[in-house]
């Protein structure tokens, strides 16, 4: 798989020359086309695959938020799960208390998380790499205790996140998993489209300038501090959306839904993806879903209680992760080609 992806990257560079005109309209068209393809596809496969496809899309959105932060503005967050949680709770409260449509709830999830990111970012985004990493990490592990401070969040029990029955117009054969998949896949497409636009915008170029050489960027009159806060806020918003999608899929939001391992999982996905490589986010999401499946299915034959059978999946997943990093698409030469 990785080989195949390297080939694709090569192609990018060749094509780069005549790919430099960017027309939002064309992008919009392609994005609609993609949606249509997914729609066809969703009628061809079984429910569980749809459910997992929805997870793939959800992770893809999460990875996109990491890419926005790390890939485009050079900041490192180890606690993105916390930002996802903010979105998730915001969405759940919207549905449960305001009784609004789930899609609106997801939009709320994005906005609230973005706002939260803006406030948090205003305080912490100026911290350099490891310091920001430490802060977000500390935030992530504080989440359960913080959630318990606010009864409205339902404590450890958490809140139900119920998108309700599938729209009647699709008929009653229409499975809720397909409904999940449509929502998540649509969200993922919108985010890819959105990130692609950002990246191509002046805004995105400033990000990269800032990432590659903050001092130079500053000299060119870029307000690095503000840019970083903005990047952090946008990334939080996207993270919030993926958080909303995640709890939609698991039908409830509770602090235990956002363990540290989730934040780190997304980070891994982002690396597998290759930080610049937007189309990769879906591949990244896919890897996060499929690898554990493979690992487990390899072992279902082995009996239940033996240490080996229990610990081997974890071993395989981690091993594959390391391989992915060692063969990450962002080799040095790759970076160079991007810079010139």
């Amino acid at each position, binding site marked *: 798989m990785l080989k195949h992806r390297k080939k694709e990257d090569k192609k990018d560079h060749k094509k780069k020359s005549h*790919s430099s005109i960017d027309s939002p309209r064309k992008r919009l068209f392609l994005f609609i086309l993609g949606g249509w393809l997914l729609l066809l596809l969703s009628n061809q496969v079984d429910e569980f695959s749809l459910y997992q496809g929805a997870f793939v899309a959800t992770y893809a959105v999460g990875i996109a938020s990491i890419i926005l932060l790390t890939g485009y503005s050079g900041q490192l967050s180890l606690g993105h799960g916390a930002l996802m949680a903010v979105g998730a709770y915001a969405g759940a409260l919207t549905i449960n208390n305001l009784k609004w449509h789930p899609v609106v709830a997801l939009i709320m999830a994005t906005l609230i998380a973005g706002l939260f990111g803006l406030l948090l970012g205003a305080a912490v985004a100026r911290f350099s790499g490891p310091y920001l990493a430490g802060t977000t990490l500390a935030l992530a592990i504080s989440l359960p205790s913080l959630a318990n401070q606010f009864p409205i969040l339902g404590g450890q029990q958490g809140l139900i996140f119920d998108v309700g029955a599938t729209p009647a117009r699709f008929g009653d054969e229409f499975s809720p998993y397909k409904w999940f998949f449509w929502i998540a896949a649509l969200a993922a497409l919108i985010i890819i489209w959105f990130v692609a636009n950002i990246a191509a915008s002046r805004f995105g170029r400033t990000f990269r300038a800032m990432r590659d050489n903050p001092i130079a960027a500053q000299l060119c009159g870029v307000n690095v501090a503000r840019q970083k806060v903005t990047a952090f806020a946008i990334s939080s918003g996207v993270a919030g959306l993926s958080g909303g999608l995640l709890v939609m899929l*698991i039908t409830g939001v509770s602090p235990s839904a956002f363990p540290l391992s989730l934040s780190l999982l997304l980070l891994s996905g982002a690396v597998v993806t290759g930080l610049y490589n937007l189309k990769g986010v879906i591949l990244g999401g896919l890897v996060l879903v499929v690898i554990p499946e493979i690992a487990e299915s390899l072992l279902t034959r082995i009996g239940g209680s033996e240490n080996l059978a229990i610990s081997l999946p974890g071993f395989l997943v981690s091993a594959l992760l390391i391989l992915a990093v060692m063969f990450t698409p962002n080799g040095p030469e790759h970076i160079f080609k991007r810079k010139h």
Partner: protein
Amino acid sequence: MIRNTRTKRAVIASALITAGAMVLSTIPAQATETTGVTATSIKLGISSPKTGSAGLVYGKVPGAMKAYFDYINANGGVNGRKITLVSHDDKYLPRLAATQTTKLVLNDKVFAIVGALGTATHSNAYNAARLARNNVPSLFVNTGFSGFASKAKYPTAFMVLPSYAMEAKIMAKFIKDTPALAPQASFLIAQDDEFGIDGVGGFKSGGHTFAATPTLYPQGGLTSALAEGALTSLSAVPGKPILVLFGTTDTTATILKAAEKLALTNKFTFMAGSVGGDANTLLALGVKATTVDGVISASFFPDAKDATDEYVKQFMEINTKYNKGVSFDNTVLQGMNSAMLTVQALRAAGKNLTRTGLMRAIDTKGSTFASAGLAPLNYSATSRVGYNGYWIGQLNAKGELKPFGGKLTLYTTDSASAPVTASTFVRKSIPKNGIPNN
């Protein structure tokens, strides 16, 4: 850097890849009443933590259930059907519990879920896997969260454990009724989650008031330092205050060790909740036998060490034969007991097994099933509550839980406001060789 052709590839790749995600798979036959059942087999499923910190505590459950089913299969199975148990690891994470349980229903096509573990995990999994919509039974949910008894919210779920609230109410009653304890000031140290919270609620509705606001600590946050701090602050309390510990066994151990360090083991009367009172673990974690000796705890089971108990004896034999190398403890006892209840439910549902039939069988006959539990099972057309009582015991230096004051008194109550009453319930004796014959 991201150009529109990249986006094109992005979108197309996304489509193709998602296609890949739908790994070669077939359109499922709509879930039916008899999914997972053939003339010769019944497929059951469980999603529970096998790895991670929770795996430490509950990892033995699926193995124990499987062992008992293997034993039954070796003895002819249920109505000629062999039971297979598909077990997935959810690491105690809602996200994984939801996918694993959905997988059990949609891919593994199990007939029913048995012994699902954890509150947040299974409540999410239950809805995500659409157990209600697909009419998939979730038998003998392994958690003290009373919510699962709600037929409205979880129409196909059956509780087995008494709720944390019941336990707390019964402890409150026990303190009130025990002359040695009643006058003493009491304090609660509990985990800051539904477990601790329900406990607090239970004591309240049990009419018990603590001398101070409960000390709640976050999961994984109870360091020895924190425990020592908490105990020191209580060391000045006059008399022999009661310390109620509502947490997992390792936290109980941390607190007991702190007491040892501060030479306060005789200063307090320790009451450990049933979840946190597993003596074997306490001793394994290095708590001194002299400290364990005298700790008050609650249980609805016989002591897992008590080989004179016919159920324990039988389960121990099965464990040594079908669960090789796994030491027998409360968790194994609990797993095998759930498995035994499952087998009786399957038998009660009769030859032509259906999901509805299975659930009706438990509703109608469940309360008569033979089980190791010393408290009655409360299944009925209107109730999905399992055991509803506890007996209070005291650990001895060997780590055996002996009835407090020598005589075993069983208290029963509910999760709400019903009074706590001493019960005269006597459990059914074990069917021959532990093979149900109902």
